[in-house]
């Protein structure tokens, strides 16, 4: 259901037919001239919220913006309230208590577990420990869109079964992960890819305090935030990463990625595909859902033969209906009927999951964001003024039209606030600071199909100017 104050004008049948026809050509002609697998440029920022365990902010090229904050809290695990406890028997114990979940895996649990020992093998965590809330302006919490988006993103997150195990502390306590997603702009287009990418980045940077207590005693954590461990550890053996959800649409036989609002309005079929990385550095499919294309809600065009504005009389309704049915689809706009062909679904999924496919590209691009942040932090710590100068020079010679890259904006001031690292390396004079505007621009070489141009960051820069004043004495 669209929000009440939406002022977007619906597209007329002529516009819809124009868009549909141009997208059905081979190769498809998109309104902004991109290729079918080209993504729009975006600005990504991580660690924007100093009081959250992890956070990220992404701005898309069409002006939509999202912020995600991840917070973790220690929670007491409900104790096992079974009335029959027998260590010898195989009888499953039944739990009393209103509304409680079924018994814990004391006797049944992995075959390698001792009965009644309390130790848990696989399956330590529970999926309920991840809680997600999506806030979209103009929609209520229980409207269809936020619920659907939240279900989709949560499903992908818990589907590999590993995240919940990292939230386990001991038998009595566990971490509860609260993921709060805020869409800051009004939902101009389907917000799923934006929200999912922002969640991915936020989770990538989420850190949990290091545990110093042992076994089952009350948990105590290391006060030093530097010792905090990442929720998604980056070791060489395992490349565990949070999942990413992509929106894929089809028009006729063409498959189009990262559709804009206009392109979605004429889609024949829309699919959301969630992908994750496997330890063997391949891609795996986590979940697929069809989305109802908004083209089904559009008005059909009126053919000239039945249009009374020409001066003739309009035929009666039955006849008009039959005339409209008999007309060729391509000459007049009609909302799509039926579903999508099975072969098409297979093709769409393949395009995302294949080696060197679109999915891998997106994940690599996001990895680049992460690496860039790491390098910036290391540079600050090493007081590497050389690199700083080099980056500054690069920034001076930066011209929008010649660059073919994904731009990542990092905020050293914020990281300094978070980690207590000194940011004085960058600030030589007040002028320097204001010129540099507290940014580090890191170039990331990306593959051919991610093609960007520089976005105007005025609003963001004005925003940042004031916190910097506080840091200068």
């Amino acid at each position: 259901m669209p929000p009440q104050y939406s002022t977007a004008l619906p597209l007329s049948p002529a516009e819809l037919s124009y868009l549909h026809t141009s997208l059905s050509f081979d190769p498809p002609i998109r309104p902004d001239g991109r290729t079918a697998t080209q993504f729009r440029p975006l600005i990504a920022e991580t660690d924007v919220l100093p009081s959250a365990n992890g956070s990220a902010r992404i701005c898309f090229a069409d002006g939509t913006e999202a912020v995600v904050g991840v917070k973790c809290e220690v929670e007491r695990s409900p104790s096992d309230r079974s009335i029959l406890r027998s260590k010898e028997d195989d009888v499953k114990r039944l739990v009393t208590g209103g509304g409680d979940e079924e018994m814990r895996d004391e006797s049944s649990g992995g075959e390698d577990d001792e009965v009644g020992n309390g130790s848990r093998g696989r399956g330590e965590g529970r999926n309920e420990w991840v809680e997600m809330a999506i806030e979209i302006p103009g929609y209520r919490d229980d409207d269809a869109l936020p619920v659907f988006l939240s279900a989709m993103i949560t499903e992908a997150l818990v589907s590999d079964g590993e995240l919940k195990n990292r939230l386990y502390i001991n038998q009595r306590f566990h971490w509860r992960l609260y993921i709060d997603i805020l869409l800051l702009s009004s939902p101009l287009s389907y917000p799923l890819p934006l929200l999912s990418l922002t969640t991915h980045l936020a989770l990538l940077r989420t850190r949990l305090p290091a545990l110093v207590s042992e076994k089952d005693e009350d948990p105590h954590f290391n006060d030093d935030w530097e010792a905090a461990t990442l929720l998604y550890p980056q070791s060489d053996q395992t490349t565990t990463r949070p999942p990413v959800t992509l929106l894929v649409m089809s028009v006729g036989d063409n498959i189009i990625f990262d559709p804009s609002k206009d392109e979605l309005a004429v889609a024949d079929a829309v699919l959301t595909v969630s992908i994750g990385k496997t330890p063997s550095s391949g891609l795996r499919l986590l979940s697929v859902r069809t989305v109802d294309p908004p083209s089904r809600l559009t008005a059909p065009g009126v053919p000239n033969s039945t249009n009374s504005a020409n001066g003739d009389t309009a035929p009666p309704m039955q006849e008009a209906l039959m005339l409209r049915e008999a007309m060729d689809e391509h000459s007049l706009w009609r909302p799509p009927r039926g579903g999508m062909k099975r072969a098409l679904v297979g093709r769409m999924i393949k395009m995302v999951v294949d080696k060197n496919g679109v999915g891998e590209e997106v994940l690599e691009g996001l990895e680049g964001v992460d690496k860039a942040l790491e390098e910036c932090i290391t540079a600050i710590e090493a007081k590497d003024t050389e690199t700083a100068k080099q980056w500054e020079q690069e920034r001076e010679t930066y011209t929008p039209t010649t660059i073919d890259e994904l731009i990542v904006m990092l905020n050293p001031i914020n990281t300094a606030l978070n980690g207590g690292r000194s940011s004085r390396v960058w600030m030589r004079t007040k002028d320097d600071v204001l010129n540099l505007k507290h940014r580090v621009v890191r170039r990331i070489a990306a593959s051919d199909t991610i093609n960007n141009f520089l976005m105007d960051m005025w609003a963001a820069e004005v925003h940042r100017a004031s916190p910097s004043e506080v840091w200068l004495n």
Partner: protein
Amino acid sequence: MQADRRRLNAPAGGTAPPVFAALPNTKLQRQTRTRKPDEHRKLFLQTGIVPSASGSAYYEIPPQSQQQTELLVPQTSSLKITCTVHGPRPLPRNAAFSPNLLLSTHVKFAPFATRNRRGYVRDASERDLGAHLETALRGVVIGERFPKSGCEVVVTVLEGEEDGWWAGSAEGKEGGWGMMSVLAGCITVASAALVDAGIDCVDLVSGGVAAVVHGAGGKDGVLVLDPAPSEHDGEIRAACVVGYLQSRDEVTEMWMKGDAGMQAEQLIDEAVKAASLARAVLAETVKEAAEIKLGKGDESAVPVNEGKGKSKDVVMTG
């Protein structure tokens, strides 16, 4: 919290169904799947059960075999879904103009539908199911023939499929696989109710569900049709629900969850097979209902005193 003195309240600590202690030497055994991997459970489908609605249908997967145990707890759950369709009816006066039929779907689990009582308020998973159902039905309904109208599809799940074996570990119940069987049933029953209501549709949409289950010892999963999650406690790796239009060979709704690996396409094909099997039952039901409505049933030798709802079993063919 202050006690509510105006009403007679339920017990403050909540209620739970009575749980009977088992004899010490009772062996609990999980029912395993005895059907073939491509065999569907028997379905029961009937339309026209709610006379005051424009269209209605009732769908049931009865328990297949009665397992003899000494416990009073029912071993397996069945699936019972009822659907009513109200419409097409005119939109309220202050509603904006809509050139197409405004379909609104509501899925609700009855509070007694699952082993743990659900509340009266619709929660997120039920709204999610409603969104899936709407996607499945919107593709099949010809909305442009009903401008300025709305149609309401209300699905009530009287008994829902469980997520895992009731006495199994809590881990076996993770994944929400029962919801997928429920969704497949909802699609089929809503389709029957839409036909009963006489709303223009492109084709009959039927729901089918298939799953990838851990094979015995092997790494490759086994593809099974119509999984009953209580039979595969914790072994389901991935599952897929489709809403399928057989005569156009198109899929209006697809929901795939879990890691299917290389078998993703085969999983979709299996789910389509399950949907085709369900469609055979659907088509037969709709045909019978049409015959009764058109009065042909009176002339042929259908004995009325045999009882309502008695019909021959339909063999499911793909």
